[in-house]
């Protein structure tokens, strides 16, 4: 794998979700609030009537709250708390997409999780000798789970299926084949 900084950035950008939308929205809101405070301050300094509310009288009302203002403040505070939690979650979580980087000597290669799952299902189906629709798989992170509905009367060797899936996924990248779980349904289908 080449380690050019552009390629590293590209790989990271492909696997993780961008935070630019959240950042842009938060900054626009912040800029609007700052602009309003600035405008009101200038208007008060000039002795003109305020646009929305005079900052000084707004603070005074907040310090000596009446019933209507308390309700309003509660609603606003609730909205701000929700917004804050959303922003913190967006900032802290890795924001992974369902993709994985594969080591390759020519450029960055990114594989979608669904491709891993269908590869695993295909390998499991041919190893178990069941029709295409009888094998399904789901992949999540490094973990792959395979479910097989056997054909009635033909036992499925779980260990052989697991090995086949490991081998096929390992050919993509050695990390994928490490955690494979095979589940064989008890009831089979006739054909």
């Amino acid at each position, binding site marked *: 794998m080449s380690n050019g900084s552009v390629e590293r950035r590209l790989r990271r950008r492909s696997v993780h979700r961008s935070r630019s939308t959240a950042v842009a929205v938060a900054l626009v809101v912040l800029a609007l609030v700052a602009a309003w405070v600035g405008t009101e301050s200038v208007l008060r300094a000039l002795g003109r009537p305020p646009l929305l509310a005079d900052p000084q009288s707004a603070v005074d009302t907040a310090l000596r709250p009446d019933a209507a203002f308390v309700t309003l403040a509660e609603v606003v505070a609730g909205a701000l708390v929700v917004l804050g939690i959303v922003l913190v979650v967006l900032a802290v979580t890795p924001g992974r997409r369902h993709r994985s980087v594969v080591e390759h000597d020519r450029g960055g290669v990114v594989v979608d999780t669904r491709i891993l799952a269908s590869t695993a299902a295909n390998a499991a189906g041919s190893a178990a000798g069941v029709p295409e629709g009888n094998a399904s798989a789901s992949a999540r992170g490094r973990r792959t789970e395979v479910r097989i509905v056997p054909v*009635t*009367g033909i036992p499925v060797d779980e260990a052989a299926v697991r090995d086949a899936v490991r081998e096929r996924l390992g050919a993509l990248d050695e990390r994928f084949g490490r955690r494979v779980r095979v589940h064989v349904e008890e*009831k089979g*289908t*006739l*054909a």
Partner: protein
Amino acid sequence: MTGGPDVPGRVEITARALTSLARAVAAEGLGAPAGRVRVGLGDAAGALALDITGPIAAGDDIVARSARIADEVKTRVSDLTGRRVGSAHIELTGLVRERDTRIH
């Protein structure tokens, strides 16, 4: 069913084919015409379950003979299809006499 990693492709036996095969085998064992024998296929913990309904050829000790026939049908179907057969359940609906079979 696959022929191993060296043989590409796979062989599938449809449920209908399995049913007719089981019916022919059961009719042969019971000594009854295949047209009067019904076979239902099911799944018992991953193995084939046969449900045979039909008449049996007249003779001595029908009960012991049906038990033996159930065993024979199980092994024969298993040999022919290559699948595990878990159980064979026989329900007798009547007797077939010699002259009856000759008419058929």
